């Protein structure tokens, strides 16, 4: 009920529309119900009484009433549509804006498909309720009452006959719509199961074929289809009897009216016109009662949808500007962690324990450690994607929570492991953080990121649309665009979260060059698996289980032969030694071949839609 009231609250701004709609509804209803009465009179006083002029007048009256009814029905239908569309539209805006403000923590836990469903299916259900159910319930009840009053007043006993099956009809249609709902839900569920079975079979087609599981897959799918068919049949069994039943119940009332009414006319208790009028009213009853069934369903669905939408709208924006937050002037780039503890789940500080360190302007800090040791957590705390559980993160001595989010984040650049690019042009993607950047600036950033050449080779250069509907880029190309994007905002603090992880070794060299340009003169944080980069860092932080276990320069760390860093180094050294031996023996590397990143060629063995593992 609370949800329903809250949904109806969205109608408030459109009060005038709402009043107009319901006024029109009742007027149209009155007009509609007066037509059978006029018709009855036309028969009694016109046709039977052989009064030509009365017949003419009655006919004109019907046409007039019908015209007005059509007009008001239009106003009422159009009005409800407008109301429903506006509320749906408002809700969608609100939902979108909420998404923009929700913290990372929210998106870590939510499934994107589910969020999409909130904005599509759930809003649709609410639209549907406002468009149909809200109107239909008022109209159905109004119609029932008015018809009941008219028939009972015109001829009480015949009225009783006309209404005899109505209570049963109402009970039947509401009962049916309640019992059928779980059956339909089960169908939907099974449809979802079938869909995901299909999706996996198609997306994992290579694995299926490689392990020769085609027959097993087909049998499994057939079993799911069979279950879907069975569940559909269960609904059909109920449904196929229900609608004929409402038709039959109503027809029985009509039969009663004709039978009893015929006897009444025969014995002079009723006029022919009234009999015709009664037959009409009784037939009319069937429609609104059938609506009642739908209404119950629609309302239930809309309320469930409303709950899901409001759950999102009510999610706390845990990361937001403090009331007294101030803008950060140009950063110098001193980043400090003071005894920071942190966890991804609320109230748990299990990802980082008492981490403290300082990075000075222009320094490179390398973060090293196994998966899940806390490196990524550290770098997500700097732009305040999450808030610390304990301790403090400061930039230039100011707590990040005291700075406005926009001034903080606009001075921090990030290149992640998997670059997300939008379905826009190359130019718009590079200028994503600075939509006002000039074309020259975009080109300069692309050049510095070693992306300019491949962009020019694309069909429409910087105006090429990329993404699902456009040109597909290789991992290395995506990464270089992401670097250009970060470069263009000219951040003071730079975060590279395993930026070369998903790039093949052929393009890696180019990206390394680009990154070097990017890091120059900025406070940089680099997460990398390979220790070769780490050598250049001003400080290396070794993470294990959420704690810094070693810190220092590469050379300093190597002196501790029991340390993790030394172990890591030894593991990696073997390969390197092999490599250097081979080359040293031959006296230095041969000239570099150009044109190495051809994106041509055979379809690589790869499976689409595979998600790389989660946050490391």
């Amino acid at each position, binding site marked *: 009920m609370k949800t329903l009231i809250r949904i109806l609250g969205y109608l408030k701004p459109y009060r005038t529309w709402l009043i107009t709609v319901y006024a029109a509804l009742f007027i149209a209803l009155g007009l509609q119900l007066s037509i059978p009465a006029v018709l009855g009179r036309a*028969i009694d006083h016109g046709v039977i009484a*052989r009064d030509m002029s009365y017949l003419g007048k009655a*006919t004109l009256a*019907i046409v007039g*009433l*019908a015209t007005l*009814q059509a007009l008001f029905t*239009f106003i009422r*239908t159009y009005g409800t549509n407008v109301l429903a*569309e506006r509320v749906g539209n408002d809700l969608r*805006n609100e939902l979108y804006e909420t*998404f*923009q403000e929700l913290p990372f923590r929210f*998106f870590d836990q939510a499934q*994107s498909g589910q969020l*999409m469903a909130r904005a599509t299916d759930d809003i649709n259900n609410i639209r549907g309720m406002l468009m149909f159910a809200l109107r239909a319930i008022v109209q159905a009840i109004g119609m029932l009452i008015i018809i009941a009053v008219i028939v009972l007043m015109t001829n009480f006993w015949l009225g009783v006959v006309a209404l005899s099956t109505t209570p049963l009809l109402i009970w039947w249609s509401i009962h049916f719509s309640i019992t059928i709902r779980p059956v339909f839900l089960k169908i939907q569920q099974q449809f979802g199961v079938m869909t995901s079975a*299909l*999706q*996996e*079979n198609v*997306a994992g087609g*290579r694995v299926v074929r*490689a*392990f*020769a599981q085609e027959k*097993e897959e*087909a049998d499994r799918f*057939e079993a799911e289809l069979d279950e879907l068919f069975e569940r559909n*049949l269960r609904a059909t069994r109920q*449904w*196929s009897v229900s609608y004929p039943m409402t038709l*039959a119940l109503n027809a029985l009332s*009509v039969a009663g009216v004709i*039978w009893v009414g*015929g006897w009444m006319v025969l014995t002079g208790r009723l006029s022919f016109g009234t009999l*015709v009028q009664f037959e009409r009213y009784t037939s009319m009853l069937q429609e609104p009662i059938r609506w009642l069934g739908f209404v119950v369903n629609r309302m239930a669905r809309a309320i469930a949808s409303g709950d899901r939408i409001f759950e999102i709208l009510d999610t706390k924006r845990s990361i937001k500007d403090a009331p007294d937050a101030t803008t950060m002037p140009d950063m110098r780039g001193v980043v400090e962690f003071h005894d920071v503890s942190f966890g991804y789940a609320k109230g748990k500080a299990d990802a980082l324990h008492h981490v403290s360190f300082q990075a000075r302007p222009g320094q490179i800090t390398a973060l090293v450690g*196994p*998966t899940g040791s806390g490196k990524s957590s550290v770098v997500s705390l700097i732009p305040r*994607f999450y808030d610390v559980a304990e301790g403090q993160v400061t930039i230039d001595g100011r707590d990040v929570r005291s700075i406005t989010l926009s001034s903080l*984040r606009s001075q921090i650049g990030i290149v992640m492991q998997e670059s997300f690019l939008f*379905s826009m*042009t190359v130019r718009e993607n590079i200028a994503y953080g600075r939509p006002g950047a000039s074309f020259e600036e975009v080109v300069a950033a692309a050049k510095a990121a070693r992306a300019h050449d491949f962009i020019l080779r694309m069909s429409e250069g910087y105006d090429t649309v990329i*993404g699902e509907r456009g040109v597909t880029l290789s991992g290395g190309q995506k990464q270089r665009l992401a670097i250009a994007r970060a470069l263009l905002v000219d951040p003071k603090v730079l975060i590279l979260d395993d930026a070369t992880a998903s790039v093949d070794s052929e393009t890696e060299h180019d990206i390394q060059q680009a990154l070097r340009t990017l890091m120059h003169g900025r406070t940089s944080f680099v997460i990398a*698996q390979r220790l*070769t*980069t*780490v050598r250049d860092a001003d400080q290396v932080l070794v993470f294990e289980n959420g704690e810094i276990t070693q810190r220092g320069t590469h050379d300093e760390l190597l002196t501790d032969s029991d340390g993790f860093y030394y172990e890591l180094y030894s593991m*990696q050294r073997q390969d390197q030694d092999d*490599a250097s031996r*081979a080359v040293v023996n031959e006296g230095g590397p*041969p000239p570099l*071949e150009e044109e190495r990143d051809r994106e041509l*060629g*055979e*379809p690589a*063995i790869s*499976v689409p839609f595979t998600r790389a*593992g*989660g*946050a490391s």
Partner: protein
Amino acid sequence: MGQIRVQVDDEILGKAYDSRIASRLLGFLKPYRSRLLFTTAMVIIGTIADLMLPKYFSMVVDEVRQEQRMSMVNLIGIAFVITVIIRFFANWGQYYTTQWLGGRVVFDIRNRMFRHLQNLSIGYIDKRGVGTVMTRIQNDVAVIQELFSETVIGIISNVLVLVGIIVIMLITNWKLALLSFLVLPIMTLVMTYWQKYAKAAYRMTRRTLSIVNANLAESIAGMRVVQAYTREPTNMKAFRKINGDNLDAAIEAAKYSSMLFPTVSFLSSASTAMIVYFGGQLVFNEALSLGELVLFIAFIDRFFAPIRELSQQYSTMQSAMVAGERIFEVLDVEPEVQDKPDAYELPEIEGKVDYNNVTFGYGNTEILHDIDLHVKPGETIAFVGETGAGKSSMINLLMRFSDVWSGSITIDGHDIRDVTQESLRSQLGIVLQDTFLFGSTIRQNIAYARSHATSQEIEQAARDVGVHEFIEKLPDGYDTEVQERGVSLSIGQRQLISFARALLADPKILILDEATSSIDTQTEHLIQQALKRVLVGRTSFVIAHRLSTIREADKVVVMDEGRIVEMGTHDELIAAKGMYYNLYTMQWRSQGTAAGSEE
């Protein structure tokens, strides 16, 4: 200002009836002929019963007015009730059977498509895209369901009703009947015009809505980037704009959708008035009885619903023809790789593999040129070369995902085209670069190729590749679900699980496409160890990216532009100072300078 680009697929509407497609679609009903006959019979009975009811009313009126026999009224009353009961059962039978038919046909089509899809090569899915293939089996088939469970029978029933009304009216009084029919062309005209304008408005609504949805979807997927670059205000403004466009379109469409119903009900009332006026005069002159007038009034009201429904059914037919064509397009694709009629089961193999002068390509482009490669059982072959050199094609051919253009591939002397695909692939194991795990438990994923493997076998396989400890630590151990957001497994962990999967299948020939992504050093170490264990005693083909793998190989095969340019052990090739030497030193070079390099 950046806005998400969306390409909107407009539905293509063509003919509402294409005899070729229609007859093939109807072919799906063949096995259920008796049910089809039954439901058609029910439709006829139901329609006749339905048309009888107003007739009874008119009979009562005339009886009361003229003969005034109560016994007749009673008789008609009983007949009315019986007819209502007959109509109830006929409707029931009709609804149940048509729904059954629709559901059954859809079951059959989906099943056939899915089985057919299993026989198609992976290239088919690659070319079409996962989304498109899914749409065929889901949405297009759903349209056919509507066709069979509602439209076909609906058309029959509506035509019957219309014809029935027309005939009864003509018999009753042909002059008044012809007058009533005047409304038919008006109605048809209204419907045609309405459809023309409404369709355009609806299309615009759908188009703007898909732009809205695409924006939403991308915003959600890329929310981390949005927030990192503080694009929220810009995005909100842009979204309000496109959402507003959708609102405008929806309100425009609402005009049309709100117009139809009042227009129809006006036409219906106006024609009732006309019947009353002219029919009333006929009653004056005794050319028409009062009951017949009542019958006309009742029937004129029933004219409209069938016309409205038929015009909807016309649209459904149009989309059904399009959907049908798409469905048959899938069903008509000949599997690229097919078992020969006399294909035999590949007996248990030792693992000797020969590529004999193999040529192969895609479309018109030849990709592999005259490849000759002979591998002894138990040997490890490392393929090395740049992207596009033909390494993946070598493997695709061995798996028989495609057939060679010329030459042959033999395993233990059996041409792989002569044996059944199932017996071939069940003896080959493959570990792919991007590890695909199914959305089931880890146990089921490892046991994918051997669903009856015991827990001990599964755990042994996991132990052998060194992932057992990790799995044990997960909340539900081997029964942990692997899903979108179920458990985040790292790339390395996924790989280890897929190693276990391959190991459990215990293939004589193993194919491995090494991952290029960097993996943390500990996991990397585990993988190297696992690899050694997995390769023992099997003929192995590795698309190698890691130096250690290459060094352990018995033979390094260097490929360039679809040819084998060098072959030998690592040491031999280094000494030869050819292409391998160049590749190798280049890798070394980038490693020396790179952050996060592989080798």
